[in-house]
């Protein structure tokens, strides 16, 4: 079989549906990555237009262009869109597009999940934009401090759009994160050791794990605040035992890691692009991996530095001031390793490199002002002024937008298969970068002169006029520059001439394929032995196209790729991917109805759509089953492997592990919130702690025992015992809730209800999982091919047991002890 016939055969298997239908049924990472990037760019444009409205309003004192009601919506939505609808999804899009290619595999671990996440993002984002156009957008600032964002300060539907819309969008972040984690760990080219991964994969891995542990506190906070707004559960109402500071803790537990979730992917792109631009290899690969991991974890110990002015004791602040200075160290390691890389090589001045220089100039300033505000007394003075606004724009635009534009220009030949031809990009560069510094450099000073952020106008005579007019004019120059970048990209994508395969002379596998990429990525999978496979073997792309790698034979007629051992990269089993399907878009639309029902208070819609989502999920899972095992199948180069259907740790198991990591963080945040209210909130203890007696304890313990045993027996009987045990645990909810009939009385009762609701949901999901396993066995699937599914169900029910026991202790102990 020659390369062309192999290409045709593989294309037939992997291609998306033709025409319009293909947009909705595609599960291919190349398509979805491009779609993610496109939609994120649309949101960037919308957010940018809002920024221009802000600058128009602030250009002169006493401006009457916008009133406070519109202005408050506009700055809230500018922040919200840029953070949640542009930055995170843009990273997801880039990772979705690039990771399988860089790792030398054919798709992400869960193709349908990619599509589901994408559509959740589109639908959730559309909700937010609808609110904006209808003039009922959130208006409490992007960090939504209650009580201002709660019913007291915002009785309208505005805040609900934020809480519900953003939670909906976060489904896409969580699913992309699960996907990226499993892909980086298990879906690599055979032989690619962990320490031989392209550096971008390390950054993506760290970022993904951060999303899994950083987003759950915010999701919890959003749910609690929405429960307060919709049903009066007083988590943030001080009179009834709540505390406004609880939100600030939960929000910044998310919010600070978020900054690094945005910066790290950009750093990954820099570490990839910079050595190529300097015609050398990256200096200090190991150090950079260590720095990325350090940043990832350290950033979780910084959240209180956003709360230096909330009255926390100075010793408490000192912990976080110290941690905030410490986090500058791994950042410095990266910066100097990059400079060392430039010294080592012969740096060029191509367009991507120019943008990287803009990154250095901007981000270093942002980092230095960051160290300034890490110093507590200075922060007391600068907090909530334009100094902070300027600082965060230096960090986010310098640390994310500029590197991402570098990435855009670097990978554009890959996206389009064309040479970048027109020189519009250079003009755009010289508009954006000076425009940016013109906008924000002087705003530092306005902040120090006492200009507060978020005021809609100001009086003249305070020395702010000149700064603001310069900022506004520069802002418009910058906007024109960004528009030119977009025009440049479109023009180049449409009319430029075909280019060569690896125009920059890079060494990573993403350039080992013809561009634009074929839907199957690689005609056969490479055996990797070094960090830059293309430097070692420049002929590799040709050999892969000739089918000399693994899985070069399309004979089995299905979408196949290989998984590897995490550490060594030794091939483990074959994964058979699902084909094109409309299930993800359908399921996310029904998920959207669920959130819509919550939003417009049409509560009848909620259970119906929950049922719909469950049915879709069952359909989704059922299709993965295989009735009988296949023998080991040849994968090329003399190797034979089994398929994932017979593996004890199929991809779904790994996905569950990381989903449970996120889930566990969510539960941990709930426990933290409870402990926080318990020890800090002013109106505690509640009128009475719960004393539900022995019945629920007996039910939980008996159910836990039954489930634990049943899930370990491994026969149909055991698979029947497990859900019964979970049902017993669920039954304990009744006596508990009857003791605390009104969750609106006190934050304690409200918390009990949330604990119980969380436990019930998990029991229900566990029961469903065991039912699927049992049904598979009863419908004649062999024990070998249900082993993986059974282990997934066991993982979930073990987690549920842990939750049940911790919940019982958390609810019961205060009543017993006092």
């Amino acid at each position, binding site marked *: 079989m020659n390369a062309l016939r192999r290409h045709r055969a593989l294309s037939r298997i992997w291609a998306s549906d033709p025409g319009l239908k293909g947009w909705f049924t595609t599960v291919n990472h190349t398509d979805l990555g491009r779609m993610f990037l496109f939609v994120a760019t649309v949101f960037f444009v919308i957010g940018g237009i809002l920024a221009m409205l802000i600058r128009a309003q602030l250009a002169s004192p006493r401006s009457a262009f916008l009133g406070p009601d519109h202005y408050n919506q506009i700055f809230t939505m500018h922040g919200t869109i840029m953070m949640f609808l542009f930055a995170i999804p843009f990273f997801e899009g880039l990772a979705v597009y690039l990771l399988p290619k860089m790792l030398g595999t054919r798709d992400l671990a869960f193709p349908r999940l990619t599509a589901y996440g994408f559509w959740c993002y589109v639908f959730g984002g559309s909700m937010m934009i609808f609110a904006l156009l209808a003039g009922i957008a959130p208006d409490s600032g992007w960090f939504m401090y209650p009580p201002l964002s709660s019913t007291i300060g915002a009785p309208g539907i505005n805040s609900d759009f934020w809480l519900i819309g953003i939670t909906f969008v976060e489904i896409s972040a969580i699913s992309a994160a699960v996907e990226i984690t499993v892909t980086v760990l298990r879906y690599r080219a055979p032989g690619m050791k962990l320490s031989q991964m392209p550096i971008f994969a390390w950054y993506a891995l760290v970022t993904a794990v951060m999303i899994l542990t950083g987003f759950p506190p915010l999701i919890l906070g959003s749910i609690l605040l929405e429960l307060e707004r919709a049903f009066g559960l007083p988590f943030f109402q001080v009179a009834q035992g709540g505390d406004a500071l609880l939100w600030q803790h939960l929000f910044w537990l998310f919010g600070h890691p978020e900054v690094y979730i945005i910066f790290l992917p950009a750093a990954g792109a820099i570490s990839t692009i910079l050595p190529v631009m300097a015609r050398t290899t990256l200096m200090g690969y190991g150090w950079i991996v260590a720095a990325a991991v350090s940043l990832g974890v350290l950033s979780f110990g910084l959240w209180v530095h956003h709360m230096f002015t909330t009255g926390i004791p100075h010793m408490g602040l000192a912990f976080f001031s110290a941690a905030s200075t410490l986090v500058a160290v791994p950042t410095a390691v990266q910066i100097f390793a990059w400079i060392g890389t430039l*010294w080592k090589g012969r740096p060029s001045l191509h367009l991507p490199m120019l943008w990287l220089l803009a990154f250095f100039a901007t981000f270093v300033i942002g980092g230095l002002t960051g160290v*300034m505000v890490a110093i507590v007394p200075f922060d007391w003075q600068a907090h909530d002024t334009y100094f902070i606004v300027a600082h965060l724009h230096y960090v986010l635009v310098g640390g994310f937008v500029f590197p991402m534009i570098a990435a855009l220009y670097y990978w554009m030949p890959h996206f389009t298969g064309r040479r970048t031809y027109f020189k519009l990009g250079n003009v755009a560069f010289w508009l954006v970068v000076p425009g940016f510094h013109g906008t924000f450099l002087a705003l530092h000073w306005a902040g120090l002169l006492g200009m507060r952020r978020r005021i809609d106008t100001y009086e003249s005579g305070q020395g702010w006029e000149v700064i603001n007019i310069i900022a506004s004019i520069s802002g418009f120059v910058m906007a024109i520059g960004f528009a030119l970048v977009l025009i440049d990209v479109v023009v180049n994508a449409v009319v430029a001439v075909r280019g060569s395969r690896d125009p920059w002379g890079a060494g990573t596998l993403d350039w080992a394929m013809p561009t634009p990429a074929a839907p199957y990525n690689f005609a056969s999978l490479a055996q990797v032995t070094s960090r830059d496979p293309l430097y070692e073997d420049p002929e590799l792309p040709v050999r892969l196209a000739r089918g000399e790698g693994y899985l070069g034979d399309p004979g089995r007629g299905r979408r196949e790729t290989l998984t590897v051992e995490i550490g060594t990269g030794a091939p483990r089993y074959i994964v058979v991917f699902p084909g094109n399907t409309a299930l993800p878009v359908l399921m996310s639309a029904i998920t959207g109805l669920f959130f819509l029902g919550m939003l417009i208070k049409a509560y009848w819609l909620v259970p119906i759509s929950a049922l719909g989502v469950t049915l879709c999920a069952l359909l989704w899972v059922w299709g993965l089953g295989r009735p009988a095992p296949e023998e080991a199948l040849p994968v090329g180069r003399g190797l034979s492997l089994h398929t994932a259907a017979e593996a004890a740790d199929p991809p779904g198991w790994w996905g569950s592990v990381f989903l449970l990591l996120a889930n566990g963080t969510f539960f941990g945040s709930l426990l933290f919130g409870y402990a926080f209210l318990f020890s800090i909130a002013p109106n505690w203890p509640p009128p009475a702690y719960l004393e539900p007696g022995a019945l629920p304890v007996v039910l939980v313990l008996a159910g836990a025992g039954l489930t634990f045993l049943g899930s370990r027996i491994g026969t149909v009987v055991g698979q029947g015992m497990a859900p019964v045990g979970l049902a017993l645990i669920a039954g304990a909810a009744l006596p508990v809730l009857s003791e605390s009939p009104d969750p609106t009385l006190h934050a304690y009762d409200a918390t009990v209800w949330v604990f119980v609701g969380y436990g019930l949901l998990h029991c229900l999901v566990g029961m469903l999982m065991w039912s699927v396993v049992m049904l598979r066995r009863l419908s004649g699937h062999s024990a070998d091919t249900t082993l993986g599914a059974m282990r997934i169900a066991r993982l979930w029910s073990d987690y549920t047991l842990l939750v049940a026991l911790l919940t019982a202790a958390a609810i019961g102990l205060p009543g017993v002890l006092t």
Partner: protein
Amino acid sequence: MHPAGPAAQVISQLWWVLLAGAAAIFLFVAALIALAWRRPPGETEERRFVVWLGLAFPMTVLAALLAYGLVVGERLLPRATPDLVRVQAEARQWDWRFGYDDAPGRVTENLLHIPAGRPVDVAITSVDVVHGFWVPRLAGKLDAVPGHVNLLRIEADSPGRYEGLGSEFNGAGYRDHRFTVIAHDAEGWRAFLRGETP
């Protein structure tokens, strides 16, 4: 940036130190980058960049800075001192009410009277949403959180009027959520306490 009290004064001084340090570091980094184009390529020692510049250099600077910041922070804390005046600030949408330990029952709206040259502790709280209490020329800001009372030490060097601001976004009336601090000389303060000042 026109300090008129000891707290604002040390913070202002801190700022100038920070600015000078930051400018020096920025120029240093920029020079290093520019040099990459100026020198012939070749073997560059990894240790020099990663260990010395990446680890040792920032850790030294940051340790000094952290110590400086913490010491300054300690000095600004509301410790017990003789001659201390205590007032209360209660924020709401969108005004401020001030009460005085030395003149029980006396409430002023959007107007805070203090004696000049004496340390004043402001006990800050809120009755509705989160607000911020900030008199830029006297001290840093501190939030007013419903249900909590936060203590802020302020002091004005000389008698005068100082602008105070609500500095935590609090809804539609945020822009005009202001107050004025009047620092009296000793005689004026006594007059205020006697109720002779409106």
